[in-house]
């Protein structure tokens, strides 16, 4: 299977046509999509037309960009003008966005071809892609297992060879955890490095868009394409940052990498913990200095996250009221219409989080729950600052286990929430993190290890990810 970098070079040199590459991926989708269900919508005609346009430009001597003719799958919470964007929710039934997300515009400007919109847990709330209104996505490595979530469709699309690249969004691990479970690379950027304009909001202080790919170099290239300041996102970091791709091969000689003790033993399956230990040894053999480091407040991560994220969600999802777009279930008064619409439009997990957030923000409980969780966030920032005085990067498992059986955690929300114990801290402190496949567990299913870096530390993080990939 060719990488995105190879495909782009082949199209630019005239060795292969973009059309041929798109057709090849559409054939792969035809072969296995019924079984995997990675997509909410496959854009076969639009992708073929887009590829033909790329081919015309190449024939005319133009260079369409670093992703020339490369098919990319988009999580279905990224707005695409004129193309349905559902968030895998009934409440957005019939809606087509009137604008493109900034990342979608950037992909087009880089010569990429959008091949489809991928399935997700409704409004990105979940860790298994079982909360979709349009059915579960299955793990291509074992279709009795979940692909992880919430960007399970994007992870499965890349793992199944439906697209060499995909975008997801990560609020508490929704890129990294499915990447780990599907055996692909997945990365969450520093908060503010990629524009959120056109990403349907879940928890605005935590959400970031990031890449999925089969290789670290492909993920780096896609990150370089989508990163950068955007005036249309007021939380976008104003400083321009250098691309990470050129320094990928510089190695890890002399880098200090700390294994986070709190996230590497308790509640982590033995086979996964073993792979993380193997990753630490591999990094050491590549020239890094690896030690253990305590980051104590990470043990409060899941608790703080499940107060903060639902609180922000309860506010963000108040906009779905049947007035301006999407579903409306009619009733005699506007208040009743809003209630009947929201009751019919949202699935159980979204309702659970809206109510949890409403409760955490309500009079009498704000101080005890939401207010305290924000202070825990400060403790975590301080602990990570201290850890990064001793280490350049931190190492943990990405997820506590390999892919679990479909249905195993659907009746126990708390058990599902604990799937994100290792990934949540990066979101709470706004730092970048990447999951790299590193072997398999006892069941033969992929294991991912996570590298975390201080804010804006993507270059160093990608270098270490490349070293891990080379050693795996």
């Amino acid at each position: 299977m060719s990488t995105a970098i190879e495909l782009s070079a082949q199209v630019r040199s005239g060795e292969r046509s973009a059309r041929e590459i798109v057709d090849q991926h559409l054939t792969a989708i035809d072969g296995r999509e019924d079984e995997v269900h990675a997509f909410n919508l496959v854009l076969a005609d639009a992708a073929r037309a887009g590829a033909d346009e790329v081919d015309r430009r190449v024939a005319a001597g133009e260079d369409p960009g670093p992703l020339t003719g490369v098919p990319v799958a988009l999580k279905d919470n990224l707005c695409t003008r004129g193309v349905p964007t559902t968030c895998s929710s009934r409440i957005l039934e019939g809606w087509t966005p009137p604008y493109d997300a900034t990342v979608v515009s950037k992909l087009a400007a880089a010569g990429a071809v959008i091949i489809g919109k991928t399935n997700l847990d409704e409004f990105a709330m979940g860790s298994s892609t079982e909360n979709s209104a349009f059915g579960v996505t299955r793990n291509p490595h074992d279709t009795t297992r979940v692909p992880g979530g919430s960007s399970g469709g994007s992870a499965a699309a890349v793992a199944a060879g439906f697209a060499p690249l995909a975008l997801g969004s990560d609020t508490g691990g929704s890129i990294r955890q499915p990447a780990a479970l599907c055996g692909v690379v997945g990365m969450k950027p520093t908060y503010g490095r990629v524009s959120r304009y056109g990403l349907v909001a879940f928890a605005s202080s935590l959400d970031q868009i990031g890449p999925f790919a089969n290789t670290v170099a492909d993920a780096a290239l896609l990150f370089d394409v989508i990163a950068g300041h955007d005036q249309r996102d007021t939380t976008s970091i104003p400083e321009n940052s250098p691309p990470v791709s050129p320094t990928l091969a510089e190695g890890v000689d002399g880098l200090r990498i700390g294994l986070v003790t709190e996230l590497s033993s308790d509640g982590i399956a033995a086979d996964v913990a073993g792979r993380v230990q193997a990753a630490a040894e591999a990094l050491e053999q590549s020239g890094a200095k690896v030690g253990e480091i305590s980051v104590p407040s990470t043990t409060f991560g899941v608790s703080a996250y499940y107060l903060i994220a639902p609180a922000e969600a309860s506010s963000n999802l108040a906009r779905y009221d049947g007035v301006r777009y999407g579903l409306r279930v009619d009733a005699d008064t506007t208040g009743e219409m809003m209630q009947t619409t929201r009751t019919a439009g949202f699935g159980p997990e979204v309702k659970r989080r809206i109510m949890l957030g409403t409760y955490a923000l309500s009079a009498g409980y704000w101080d005890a729950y939401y207010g305290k969780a924000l202070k825990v966030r400060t403790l975590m920032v301080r602990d990570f600052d201290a850890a990064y005085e001793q280490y350049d990067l931190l190492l943990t498992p990405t997820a506590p286990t390999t892919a679990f059986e479909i249905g195993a955690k659907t009746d126990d929300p708390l058990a599902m929430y604990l799937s994100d114990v290792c990934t949540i801290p990066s979101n709470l402190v706004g730092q970048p993190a990447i999951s790299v496949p590193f072997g398999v567990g006892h069941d033969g299913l992929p294991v991912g290890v996570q590298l975390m870096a201080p804010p804006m530390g993507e270059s160093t993080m990608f270098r270490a990810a490349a070293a891990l990939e080379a050693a795996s």
Partner: protein
Amino acid sequence: MAARISRDDVAHVARLARLSLTAAELDMFTEQLGAVLEHAADVEALDVDGVPPTAHPYPLVNVLRDDVVNDSIDRDEVLRAAPSVEANQFRVPPILGEEP
């Protein structure tokens, strides 16, 4: 162990969030939200007096741009997405006379 959240609390929160729950859903959500809040008891019990809150990982202030007119989204295109429209406005059922 006392329940972290009562059935009445859940019914109240559902009303605030404009969601209708069946009796069975009310039972289920009361139990599930209670379990999550029980897990969050570690945060609730933490002594964090004097620690400032962090609402946002990257505090930006005074985000400004040049005061120039840019293209905005076409009104007709926005209205086409609405469930009901009248005279270039969103149309909704009656709002007066209902319970507050």
